[in-house]
């Protein structure tokens, strides 16, 4: 028994040394650069949480088109993707907001390449409330008064509605500050002013919609692709009080009648080439745009598509 254990130990010691040696080898091997793989190509894609579902669906579909191409998708927010692109750490950044001039400047300084922008679809930033909320439309000013720093609206009765169940306090559901949705909302609804503190800042668009669905007094914002019919309600939005309110839809997002419509963007460093170019071309083709539509967003009109 003891001899067996001793043999076991000898084996374990050998294994430990072997493991250590292997680890060293791996470390040095990876430091040298792992670009010598000819069989698979890896496209790194990172950014917007709004787009993470559509990006994932592209990657999944593209596997059938080009099995040798691996696409890695990370979320985290448009800011994350753009920051990684500036460092040259990824191939494609997904963004639900435009790159800021200083970010473009930084990217040029860091990598010597100019970021190239691709519009791959459109989205309406929908305002969600609980399905039982009697409110049907809202104006940008009212939203700013609810969400913005210094805004005075904190009760539903101030908007002239009462919530079934008696909750009067407005539960503000927002996004964490890395999200492009957050920045887009701040820029276009709050006019670059800051948010009021104390909102529930969710980490994903889905979490926003789920929280709103479970909370009668809640109001939140997210891409229209996250709508769950029957559980939440999308409000019509007017630019100013008194003006006609527009429902978020494919048509109103495309012709920008809906006041908080935005483009879904991809950024690359310089003109893309090789597999990255092929991937983006495919995204811009009918097949890629079909995925956009299936994910709940607004595809590009036929004349703007590739081929």
């Amino acid at each position, binding site marked *: 028994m003891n001899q067996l254990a001793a043999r076991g130990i000898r084996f374990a010691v050998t294994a430990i040394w072997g493991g250590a040696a292997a680890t060293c080898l791996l470390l040095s091997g990876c430091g040298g650069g792992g670009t010598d793989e000819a069989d698979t190509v890896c496209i790194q894609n990172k950014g917007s949480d709004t787009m993470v579902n559509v990006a994932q669906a592209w990657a999944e579909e593209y596997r059938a088109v080009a099995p040798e191409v691996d696409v890695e998708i990370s979320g985290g927010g448009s800011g994350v993707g753009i920051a990684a692109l500036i460092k040259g750490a990824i191939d494609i950044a997904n963004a639900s907001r435009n790159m800021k001039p200083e970010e473009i400047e930084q990217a040029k300084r860091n990598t010597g390449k100019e970021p190239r922008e691709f519009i791959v679809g459109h989205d309406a930033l929908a305002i969600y409330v609980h399905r039982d909320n009697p409110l049907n439309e809202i104006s940008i000013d009212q939203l700013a008064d609810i969400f913005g720093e210094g805004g005075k609206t904190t009760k539903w009765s101030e908007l002239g509605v009462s919530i079934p169940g008696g909750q009067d306090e407005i539960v503000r559901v927002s996004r964490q*500050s*890395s999200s492009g949705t957050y920045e887009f909302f701040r820029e276009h609804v709050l006019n670059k002013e800051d948010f009021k*503190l104390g909102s529930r*800042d969710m980490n994903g668009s889905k979490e926003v919609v789920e929280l709103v669905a*479970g909370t009668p007094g809640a109001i939140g914002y997210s891409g229209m692709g996250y709508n769950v019919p029957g559980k939440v309600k999308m409000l019509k939005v007017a630019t100013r009080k008194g003006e006609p309110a527009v429902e978020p839809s494919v048509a109103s997002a495309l012709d920008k009648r809906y006041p908080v419509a935005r483009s879904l963007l991809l950024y690359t460093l310089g003109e893309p080439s090789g597999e990255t170019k092929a991937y983006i071309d495919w995204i811009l083709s009918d097949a890629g745009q079909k995925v956009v539509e299936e994910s709940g967003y607004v595809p590009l009109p036929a004349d703007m598509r590739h081929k």
Partner: protein
Amino acid sequence: MTDPSPQPTAQFSFAVRSARRPTLYVLAERSLTALIYACGISAIFFVVGIFLFVFKEAAPVLFSDRFSLSQFLFSEQWYPTSELNKRYGVLAMTAGTFSVTALAMMIAVPFGLGAAIFISEFCGPRLRETLKITIELLAAIPSVVWGFIGLTVMSKLIVQLTGAPVGVNILNGGIILALMSVPIIVSIGEDALKAVPDSFREAGLALGATRWQLVWRVLLPAAKNGLLAAVLLGVGRAVGETMAVLMATGHAVQIPHGILDSVRTLTANIAAELGEAPAGSDHYRVLFLIGILLFTITFVVNLAADMAVRGIRKK
């Protein structure tokens, strides 16, 4: 005892020479010993390394004039990405961390110590083993699973039972954290009670004390250092927990006024924003500074726990 160094005979010295180990073997053993020493010291190296690395990333902003430490600690204004006026105040999140931890401890300490007392004083060996294994399994549940439970199960229950507008709040996070920190309180607490000599118990029982009196008057005072350590380690666990509170506390930057308010904790704030902050930006560095704050809190708590435990060892 004979003289340890007699004159060696020729035969004896020959025997010694032949028993000498091969040079290669001696070298191998020396290098192995060096490796073992290195590994032993690695723990210090890692802890200091973690502190230095995190501090190094945080330092440029800490010593810049754009940043004031008192604002960082005592302002509740957290606007890391504002276009007009960036403000980095973590008071609301510190309050969040402390409120969730305090609630968790209010639940976990009585239950944890109660369970520790039951396991060490009141139950038979078989039940004891079962309970200990169950509590060990409770400790093994990953924090993201706890967070998921908080998000999907607990939040609905809380809305139904309390009528709170939102189910992700201090109460939710506190209960989840209590369940997460109970195992460590039970196991360390039980060790502390086991360390009380049986003669104490025998003396108490001989005086006619009931077991309730025994626990209350004899065991708790005798084991108080160890029990304190157990509670402190529970606090350390609760303060440092990330994923569960990220998902269960509602993530709102505000000073809470009741246990049904949503809060954001220091850990959850780092987890939510670290990915976003471009490396090297002020925001990124302030998040590392929050890391230093957390490191310091848990370091002090763990140090206190260690000193409490050392207290019992000395006795």
